[in-house]
Each structure stands twice: as structure tokens, then as C-alpha cells.
């Protein structure tokens, strides 16, 4: 058993807790009345503290401890939540993240947290109700009512200040004894600090209680001084107006509240008892193991295809039955294995609200980040890669997209800018759109910059469409910010974005409407390594079409084919859609056109097209494999697969065929 094993778990869990703290903080900031968030944060911080102390990361433990103090004060209403408090908490989380990151990179997780610790300490020290040195007691309405009622019944009310000896070790125990004496004499209706705090020794050496009793002051004084280690007892009569007109009866709720104060609850505070049931049971599995499981399963799928083919040829009913059952079981297995690798994009998105908050604060902008479709799932490998490109785009939108509040108001827009991050499935792709309602892209500005930087020449500049102009911002060495800022605008960001996304087999496009905002649309493959596909025949060759792109198949008679601008089209359910002859496109040798067209209707987003093939072979599960490094970017081919007979079939990328 080596430490590293624990270390991994520690890092993973710390990250989860930090993420949770982050999330809850953001939510809490929006709704500072809901202390449920604080409890949640407190729990995570507490766990983190325990874990890091166990692992010997003292700075981590120290900082979380101070955070806990602040959070505790907040949830006990001893501290007003204001921006300073939230900022300090956010800063602490940042520091914690840095430390955890350092640990995960083999560092010692040490960081100078003195300043932060002081900051947090100062916040707690500023609590309006001093927790440690009880010096006064508040007479709120409830107490007043109670006092006047008891006065009516002839009881005396005393404010008793008990000072324990400073050397006293078991303060809580002494306090308990004091309370014991007091309760024999009468009823404690209020104490400062609260009874819970006193029980938990959260007081310096003195506390104040309000006692309602019919005992005399002297007798009380004497019996209290009998408790050992009590240094002094000050008893003052509480002046109570006999306001009999205060008719209000104590409502049941208030009565309960009184009981809570007087009857010393022997166990934890109610907050801790509210612990939510934990989530589903999970185990952590190394991603490498999942990968090798996947690889093995792919082999199995290929053999399954082979087996299906053989059994079809042999036509033996017993063999058929067995093969069919095996296919079914492996189908289920496949679903499970694929699902295991799928991760919601949430894992990437969840750090963005925080980032946008910080950035907009730094830049003096007001920005709201809306996230839609965070539960959209993507293969783990893709998830790992898209984080950085998205950060770049988001920073770009915050910095260049959204204008300053003043400028927005002048343009008749809402002072607060909106950035929308939306993820959704379409076909066998996942789309992530990043929209902002900012200034949009200025064509002239882009062109000028591109000319200045020698990316294009004047001649081409005139011929470019808007879209092509927008594409220019992905060119390397391009920066459109008038001033280079810390946030973005070094001109290194966006070309990296494009490269990363393309290396994942995806693409990124820009749409913009000057004055109204821009949209960056990222298309990513699911990289489901096993997909359902329709196998089609063209002459001697077989191709696979991902089922997710297909709407339906159709047989079209030549007379139904019309021509628009030299382009073959057909009327498909009332819509005119273009026909693409795949044999022509792929220059399939020895192709002869039959007396009718077999057409596969495919879609990309809203657009559709018909693909002409020779014949349909059937549906099959195929394993998606890359064409390798030697053949990158073959047009309209997204990869290859191995068929049951061991031959290779190419997979057609329908998205590339539809413009």
C-alpha cells in the first residue's frame, strides 16, 4: 500500500469538493438568503480540511479551517454576507485549487496563505455579535414580551454575568453546572453566547444569561458562587415595565423557540442533522482500464459481425439462435461500455460561471452566463480536450464580445450582457454554441488588421464573404483587441482553438451580426467508437453511413429527378433537396447506373440531402477506426471500419457532404 494510491483519491476528491464549493458559492452569491448553500459549502470545506490534515498538507488545512470559521459565522447569522466576504471565499477557493493542482503535479501543495488567512480572520473578527467575548445581551421583542408576562406573574428577571476563572479547562462543564443551578432557581430565557455555543465552548470565559426566577438576588449569588472555578457573578435586575396591555400570547412557534433555548439540547446543532443522503454509490476506475476494455470489445464486435455472416451462410437454426443471442447480449454490453465512457459536458462547463464572474469583475463589465444542455454527454476523450478551446472562446466573448455597461446602455441594450453556452446532440455529433449579445464582429476592422499583418492582400480582401472574413480571426498571429489585455487578445488563442477542435475531428464556425452579437459554433464528433451504420454498395465497393445522420432511404425513379442550376434535385415530402451522386463524387470505378436510384436521405442540422448509391446492404454495428496519421482529412470520409469478412469499409461523413 503506497501513499500514491491515497494521494490520487485525495486529489480526485479534493477537486470534487472544490468544485462543489465553487458551484454552491456562485449559487449562494445569487441568493444570499438561502443558507442551504452555506451548509453545503461548509460540509465540503470541512471534509477538505479533514482530508488535507490527514495527508499532511498543512496550508490547505489551515486555509480551509479559516474558511470554515467564516462560513460558520455566516450560517449562524453572525456575519452579514457582502461582497467582501464572498470575494475572500472565492479567493480562498482559488488558492486551494492552486494547492491541489500543485499536489497533483507532484508538488508539496504549499502556498503562502498568510494574507488570505488574515483576511478571513479579519472578516470573522468584524462580526456584529461578538462570539468570543460576550459583553452584552440583546433584548429583542420576544424577550421583552416574555419578561413583561413573567413580571405580571410576579417573577423577577435578572441579567447574570458569570465570569469563569481564566485557568478553567473544562469551561463547557462549568457552564453546564452554572446552568444547572440557574435552572433549579428559575428559567433561563436567553443567553449570550447561545446555549449551543456555550456547550461547544465557543466563549472566552464569561457569559450572560437572563433568568426569570422568584428567588432573591442574594441567594442566587451565593448558590452560583458555590460552583467551583467561577470567578465572579454579577447580578443585575432587569427593569421590566408591567405592560399588561401587551396582550400578545406566545405563539406555539415562539414557545418552541424558548424551549430550544432553555432546554439544553444534548446533541449537535440542527444544521448538522440536516445532512443530505449521499449520492449513488460509485467506484473510481482508471481510464486506461476502460480504454482497454473498449479495445477488447471492439475486437469482439468485429468477430461478432463475422459470426453473423457465417451463420447466415450456413443456415443452421441452432447456430442462428446462439449467434442471435450472443449478438443481443453483446449489444447490451456495448451500451454499458459506451455509457461508462460518456461524461456530461457539465464537467467542463462547471468551472465557467466562476471564470466569467471573475473576468467580468476584472473588466468592469456585467455579464450573465447562461448554460443550456450541460447534461449533454460526450466521450471522455473529447471532454478532456475541449476545455481549453472553450476557455479561449469564452474569454474572447467576455473581453471582445460584450461591451462596457456604458456603451451597452448607449446602444439601447441591457446593461448586462449575456453569454449563452449551449450544448446539444445532432446526428453523431455534439454541437457547442457560444453566443453573446455583444458588439459582434466588425468586418472592416478585421480586414484592416488582416491586411496590416499581411495575412491577406488587398485583392483577396475585396472578394471575401463575411463568413470568410470572420474565419480570419482564427488565423495565427491575429489580434483584434485595440489593446492587448490580460484576458485575451494576444492573438494566440483563437488559432489554437481551431487547431485543437480540428484535431478532434470537429470544426468551428462563426456567425456574427454587427451590433447584436456573435456565435461560435463548435461541432464535435461523439467519438463513439462503435456506431450503428447503414452499409451501402457502390459497384464493388462498400461504404458505411452512420445511422444517426440518416432520415430514411428511398427508391427514386429517374423521371422524378429534376434539375436546378445543373444540380440534381428531388421533391422529398414537399421539400426540394439536392441529390449527390456518391459514385461520381468518390470516382467509383466500373459504375453503371441502374434503372432507378437508391437514395439515402441524410441530414445535418436542419439541412437535408439525398445520396445516390447502388444498393443498400443493411444495418450493422460498426467499430469506428481512424484512417491513421498518413491520411489525414480525406474529404467526406470520417474513418473506416472492419467488416465481418475482414475487409475495410470507409465511413462516409454526411456532415461534410451538406454545405
Amino acid at each position, binding site marked *: 500500500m503506497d501513499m500514491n494510491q491515497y494521494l490520487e483519491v485525495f486529489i480526485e476528491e479534493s477537486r470534487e469538493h472544490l468544485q462543489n464549493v465553487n458551484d454552491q458559492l456562485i449559487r449562494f452569491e445569487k441568493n444570499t438568503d438561502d443558507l442551504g448553500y452555506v451548509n453545503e459549502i461548509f460540509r465540503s470545506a470541512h471534509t477538505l480540511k479533514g482530508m488535507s490534515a490527514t495527508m499532511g498538507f498543512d496550508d490547505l488545512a489551515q486555509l480551509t479551517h479559516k474558511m470554515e470559521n467564516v462560513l460558520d459565522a455566516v450560517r449562524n447569522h453572525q456575519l452579514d454576507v457582502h461582497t467582501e466576504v464572498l470575494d475572500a471565499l472565492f479567493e480562498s477557493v482559488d488558492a486551494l485549487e492552486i494547492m491541489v493542482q500543485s499536489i497533483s503535479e507532484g508538488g508539496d501543495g504549499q502556498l503562502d496563505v498568510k494574507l488570505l488567512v488574515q483576511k478571513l480572520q479579519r472578516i470573522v473578527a468584524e462580526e456584529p455579535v461578538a462570539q468570543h467575548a460576550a459583553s452584552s445581551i440583546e433584548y429583542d421583542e420576544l424577550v421583552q414580551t416574555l419578561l413583561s408576562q413573567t413580571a405580571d406573574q410576579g417573577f423577577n428577571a435578572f441579567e447574570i454575568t458569570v465570569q469563569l476563572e481564566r485557568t478553567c479547562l473544562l469551561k463547557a462543564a462549568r457552564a453546564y453546572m452554572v446552568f444547572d443551578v440557574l435552572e433549579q432557581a428559575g428559567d433561563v430565557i436567553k443567553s449570550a453566547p447561545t446555549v449551543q455555543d456555550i456547550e461547544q465552548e465557543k466563549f472566552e470565559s464569561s457569559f450572560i444569561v437572563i433568568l426569570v426566577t422568584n428567588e432573591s438576588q442574594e441567594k442566587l449569588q451565593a448558590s452560583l458562587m458555590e460552583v467551583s472555578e467561577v470567578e465572579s457573578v454579577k447580578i443585575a435586575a432587569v427593569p421590566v415595565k408591567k405592560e399588561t396591555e401587551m396582550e400578545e400570547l406566545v405563539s406555539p412557534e415562539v414557545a418552541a423557540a424558548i424551549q430550544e433555548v432553555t432546554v439544553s439540547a444534548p446533541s449537535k446543532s440542527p444544521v448538522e442533522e440536516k445532512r443530505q443522503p449521499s449520492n449513488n454509490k460509485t467506484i473510481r476506475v482508471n481510464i486506461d482500464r476502460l480504454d482497454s476494455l473498449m479495445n477488447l470489445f471492439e475486437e469482439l464486435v468485429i468477430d461478432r459481425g463475422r459470426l453473423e455472416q457465417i451463420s447466415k451462410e450456413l443456415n443452421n437454426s441452432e447456430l442462428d439462435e446462439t449467434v442471435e443471442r450472443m449478438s443481443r447480449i453483446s449489444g447490451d454490453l456495448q451500451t454499458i461500455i459506451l455509457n461508462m465512457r460518456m461524461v456530461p459536458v457539465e464537467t467542463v462547463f462547471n468551472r465557467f460561471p466562476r471564470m466569467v464572474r471573475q473576468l467580468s469583475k476584472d473588466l468592469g463589465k456585467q455579464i450573465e452566463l447562461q448554460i443550456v444542455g450541460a447534461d449533454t454527454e460526450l466521450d471522455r476523450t473529447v471532454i478532456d480536450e475541449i476545455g481549453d478551446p472553450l476557455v479561449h472562446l469564452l474569454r474572447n466573448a467576455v473581453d471582445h464580445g460584450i461591451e462596457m455597461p456604458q456603451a451597452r446602455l448607449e446602444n439601447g441594450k441591457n446593461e448586462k450582457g449575456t453569454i449563452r453556452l449551449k450544448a446539444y446532440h445532432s446526428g453523431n455529433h455534439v454541437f457547442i454554441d457560444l453566443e453573446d449579445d455583444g458588439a459582434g464582429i466588425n468586418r472592416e476592422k478585421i480586414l484592416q488588421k488582416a491586411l496590416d499583418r499581411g495575412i491577406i492582400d488587398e485583392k483577396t480582401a475585396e472578394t471575401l464573404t463575411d463568413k470568410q472574413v470572420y474565419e480570419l480571426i482564427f488565423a495565427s498571429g491575429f489580434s483584434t483587441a485595440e489593446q492587448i489585455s490580460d484576458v485575451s487578445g494576444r492573438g494566440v488563442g483563437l488559432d489554437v482553438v481551431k487547431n485543437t477542435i480540428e484535431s478532434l475531428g470537429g470544426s468551428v464556425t462563426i456567425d456574427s451580426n454587427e451590433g447584436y452579437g456573435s456565435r461560435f459554433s463548435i461541432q464535435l464528433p461523439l467519438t463513439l467508437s462503435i456506431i450503428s451504420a447503414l452499409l451501402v454498395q457502390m459497384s464493388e465497393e462498400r461504404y458505411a453511413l452512420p445511422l444517426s445522420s440518416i432520415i430514411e432511404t428511398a427508391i427514386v425513379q429517374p423521371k422524378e429527378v429534376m434539375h436546378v442550376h445543373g444540380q440534381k434535385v428531388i421533391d422529398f415530402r414537399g421539400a426540394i433537396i439536392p441529390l449527390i451522386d456518391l459514385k461520381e*463524387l468518390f470516382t467509383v470505378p466500373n459504375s453503371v447506373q441502374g434503372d432507378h436510384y437508391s437514395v439515402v436521405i441524410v441530414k445535418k442540422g436542419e439541412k437535408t440531402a439525398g445520396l445516390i448509391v447502388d444498393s443498400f446492404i443493411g444495418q450493422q454495428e460498426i467499430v469506428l477506426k481512424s484512417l491513421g496519421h*498518413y*491520411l489525414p482529412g*480525406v474529404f467526406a470520409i470520417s474513418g473506416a471500419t472492419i467488416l465481418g469478412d475482414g475487409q*475495410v469499409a470507409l465511413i462516409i461523413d454526411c456532415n461534410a457532404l451538406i454545405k
Partner: protein
Amino acid sequence: MKIIVFQLGDEEYGISVEEVQSIEKIQHITRVPGVKKYVKGVINLRGVITPIIDLRTRFNLQEQLNHELTRIIMVRLNDVEAGLIVDAANDVVDIDEKTIASVPETVEGTAVEYLNGVVKVDSRLIVLLNLPKVLSLEDHLQ
């Protein structure tokens, strides 16, 4: 150094054994549309999709039909894997690196840049292949 000697047309070529993964018999090749003519397509090599290059076409030699002796030499260079179609894979010979001579400028039909030099083994003249050049990631797309 050890080299694998193979035949292209009438000439013998050599490639370092270090660069060779295996030698395969010719099998069904799936054509890939839209790539250069010398890329014959891809095959399934024990579950891995591997591109196949026809060296005869690559070197502008006379195209020949595949026959009994035709082989695919599977090579690997860094992370690029590919198969080279050759007319025959003859044997493995040991050569002395010092005896490698530069390629005469007029090697017929073959772009000199794809060659590393020539070496004489007994009475055989073996042309050494410059694999990085042959597999260079220039545009294979049409």
C-alpha cells in the same frame, strides 16, 4: 546494419530492418477516394486500418499487376504506419554502412530524393530507400 531487400521491377531496393514491422501477402485493399494515385487504399492489418502505398507508382515505374510474389512491407516511422507494395521481398542482408555510395543522378524513373544511396553486395546493386521521404506527410489528397 541489416536491410531487407525487395524487388521493384528489375531493381533491388533495401530498407533497414529497424523500420520494418512485418511482411504481408497481398490482400484486399479498400480504395480511398480523393487521394493521390500511389495511395492504393487501406487494409485491415490485424485490426488496425493501415494505408497502402504502391512504390511502383510512387517512383513512376511501370505499373504491374499483383502476382504470387507481390508483398506488402509494413513500415513504421514515428506514429505513421503504412504498407509498401513491392514486387517481391527477397531476403535480409548485412551491409557495412561505410560502403554506401551516393545515388547517381540518373537513376532511371525514380526521384533521387526518395533514395539514401546505393550499396553493392557481392554482385548485387541495392538502392537504399529514404523512408521518411517516402512517407513524408506532403499532401496525399488530390
